[in-house]
């Protein structure tokens, strides 16, 4: 049994998809809130013309968090011709729906409307765009923002999703490679949740990690097709550290900068502190050291111990070197796969 198999088991434990059972309640709430939003917007004269999922679920990089809430990242789009000049006006409609449904902490933030569900571990972020032709503009502004800060800001949310999901640059087994990227993102997000205190961890934004991992991704697939997430993670983390994401500020202090690859091309970590950048830099270096140790280790059990140290208890360590679980035959999760074989 290979360490890759252990990575896959770990991944199966931590991954969260919109269709997963664990997300069932969140999905149901999202759907019912969306229905209410559609009615509310229609009655207000701003019919919703499009809606889509944003965030990690749209990029297939969602993970379960041991303590924190499930997230709903919902985007609603209205026609630019019918949209009010003041974006906060439509955000108030969202706030009204959420308050009516008994959410706690419902509030209008600069880019979105956010709230927590009363009796569920559920956090909701709703963003509003207006759309003209294929161009989107984000509703920016808080309740108390002045007119200058209430704007429809050009944005490319779908292009961002496409960027993360794009596998066209990979030659050969492109699907396999994009799946490897997504797993790396999930591993690193779980690593962040394990290694950072909650306050700093919150500021190590998932989209920042996702963009770094996607853009510096080093696939590790042997010439014979054997996949190694361990090697790929090690090489990708090394490439991230060697790239120019970390800006030296002063002795052993770093600022992290990751720009969106689409409009508005802002730095995801624009308002992050030097402490966040420094911690991320140091912890990534520590991870790299551990990954190298794991790669140099012959014993599967010792490899898994090192990796459990990085990713937490969901990364299994076999009881014995020869894993008794491995004797159980693991079958493909697919019922049928199309093949090209003939004779």
């Amino acid at each position: 049994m290979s360490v890759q198999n252990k990575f896959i088991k770990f991944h199966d434990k931590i991954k969260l998809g919109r269709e997963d059972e664990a997300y069932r309640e969140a999905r149901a709430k999202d759907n019912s809130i969306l229905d209410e939003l559609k009615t509310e917007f229609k009655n207000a004269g701003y019919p919703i013309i499009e809606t889509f999922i944003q965030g990690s679920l749209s990029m297939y990089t969602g993970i379960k968090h041991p303590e924190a809430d499930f997230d709903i990242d919902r985007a609603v789009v209205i026609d630019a011709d019918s949209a009010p000049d003041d974006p906060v006006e439509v955000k108030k409609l969202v706030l009204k729906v959420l308050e009516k449904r008994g959410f706690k902490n419902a509030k209008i933030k600069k880019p979105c409307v956010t709230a927590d569900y009363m009796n569920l571990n559920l956090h909701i972020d709703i963003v509003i765009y207006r759309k003209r032709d294929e161009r989107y503009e984000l509703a920016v502004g808080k309740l108390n923002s002045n007119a200058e800060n209430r704007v429809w800001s050009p944005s490319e949310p779908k292009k961002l999703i496409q960027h993360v999901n794009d596998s066209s640059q990979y030659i050969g087994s492109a699907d396999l490679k994009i799946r490897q990227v997504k797993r790396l993102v999930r591993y690193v997000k779980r690593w962040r949740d394990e290694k950072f205190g909650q306050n700093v961890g919150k500021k190590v934004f998932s989209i920042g990690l996702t963009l770094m991992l996607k853009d510096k991704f080093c696939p590790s697939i042997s010439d014979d097709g054997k996949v190694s997430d361990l090697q790929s993670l090690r090489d990708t983390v090394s490439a991230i550290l060697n790239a120019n994401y970390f800006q030296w500020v002063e002795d052993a202090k770093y600022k992290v900068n990751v720009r969106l690859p689409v409009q508005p091309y802002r730095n995801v970590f624009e308002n992050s502190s030097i402490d966040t950048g420094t911690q991320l830099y140091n912890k990534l270096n520590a991870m790299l050291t551990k990954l190298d140790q794991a790669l140099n280790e012959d014993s599967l059990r010792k490899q898994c111990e090192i990796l459990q140290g990085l990713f937490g208890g969901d990364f299994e360590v076999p009881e014995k070197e020869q894993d008794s679980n491995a004797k159980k035959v693991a079958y493909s999760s697919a019922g049928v796969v199309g093949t090209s074989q003939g004779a």
Partner: protein
Amino acid sequence: MLSEIKQHLIKQGFNCTTIEAGAGERIVVETTILNHSIQLMMVEDPPYYSLPGFFLINPDFLGRLAHVSVHEYAGIQIGAVCVNAPESLSVNFEQPLLVVEESLRRHISLLEKCITNPDWNHSELLREFYSDWLRICDPDSFKPLLANIARPVLQTLSVYSPVNGKQFGIESHYMVHPADDSLSGISDIQLSIQKDNRRIAGKAVVIPIETLTPAPKHSDALDEWYLHTISSLPIKVRTELQQKYGQWRETAYWVVFTAKTVNDERTWFALKLSGKAKKALPLSDEKLKNWKLEALPIRLFNQENTVERGGGILTLAGKKVAVIGVGSVGSEIAHKLSAAGIRHLTLVDPDLYEINNLYRHILEQHWVGAPKTVALSVALQRQFPWSCAQWKLDKLMEFARSSRMNDFDLIVIAIGNPTQERLFKQYLLDTNSKVAVINSWLEGYGVGGHATLDISNAKGCLLCSYVCQETGCRGLVSNMNFIEPDQVTMKSVAGCGEQFISYGAASSAQTGVMAANLAIRYLEGKQTKSCKVSWKGLDEDAMAEGIRLTHRYYNFSSSLEYLPLVDEDCDVCTH
């Protein structure tokens, strides 16, 4: 040009003159070997696409020389010297002077060796015995006597006449034929005899010779050579010839001689004795007077000689191999295994031969509508006289359940159906069958083909090649494939039931030959570890169809190399 050649040879130190001979002027080079003055005459003009010959003028005073055949040319005795064999030469036809010089040097060097080393000369004369024998054969009797003789012992056998009207094929030859029950019942030899359309022409007497003397230089010397050879036979053999075979009376005898030449190599040659009245085989000068002797070309047509001469392997004759699936790949495999000398093939396939199969299958069109296995079994036996290919109209699992797998030395599967192939593997595991299995398949659009060898007591099995390389679990498609799974790779010209994978006969033949080679290596005992092998073609056709290929395809550079099959995540092999 002749003048240029002459000047060149003189410049190189040769003693050259010119003489008038035959159609014109010829260059003659004079040299001395062991105090003998030798004259070599150049007989060919440029351009040269092979080594130009030099004839040895009046060679008789040198005695019998190996690689020299004596003829008469323009009224003089000349010896044609054979310097070409055994090398394959690439001639610099753009530089004829160099070619002539090199040829001359080779002629002189060969003659030096023959003249100065009598032992070597004698040994070479024996080595080329059969070539010399052919020279004294009647040039019109170009069809050799076919001799189905297994053992070089004193014996008498029947000689069958050619079938009337046959110009080509085995049936157009005289045939020395004993009862060989290992021949296929539908081989040409057996069929022509069974059909009773071959008459017996007379008797052949096989005489082994212990001490071979070089072949006579001319057909005139054949009587003398025959008598010398008979009189040199051991007394026991001569007595047996007289007592056992001297009772018959015939007007014709085919005498087949056999002897060892050099390096333990055995040669066979024949002569025909024809008389006007029925008499016993003449064994003395007196009795030979009424007989006409004629040297005959002979071709040994027994299993040992025929299979080995064709590159087959005699030790494979007794191996039992089942080939499951005789489509374009399987039929190629079965053909190559038969060509390797494997007699006991069991061909298994329920399908009929269809018009759609014609352009990528080895069977002829008259088999359309027949079961593929029946047709192939006949085709193999008709081509390979010692094949006894059998057939079954079973599907893979029907065959598995109705036959004893361990009775086979090897099972080769070429059905291109991963589900059935994995099912069969599981069946072998469940029934603890130890038979070795080769699975072979190709992929469409000419991107390549694959084979695995699964040896039961070695690490590495078919399921290793199905381990998902991403997750380590049992997968549903081979991890050796070059085309990514879950794509539409089938073409359809007439809807459901008429779909097919696009590939040409070259792809299926290449895959079949690759799998057959692996099978032969295994059966010879040269491949003792489970392994996998692939060949990789170009991607242009796949690209044109928008087919996505795997990482393995783009990184594969080990075409036709045997790679380890075992996968560390295979639940069968690693525990």
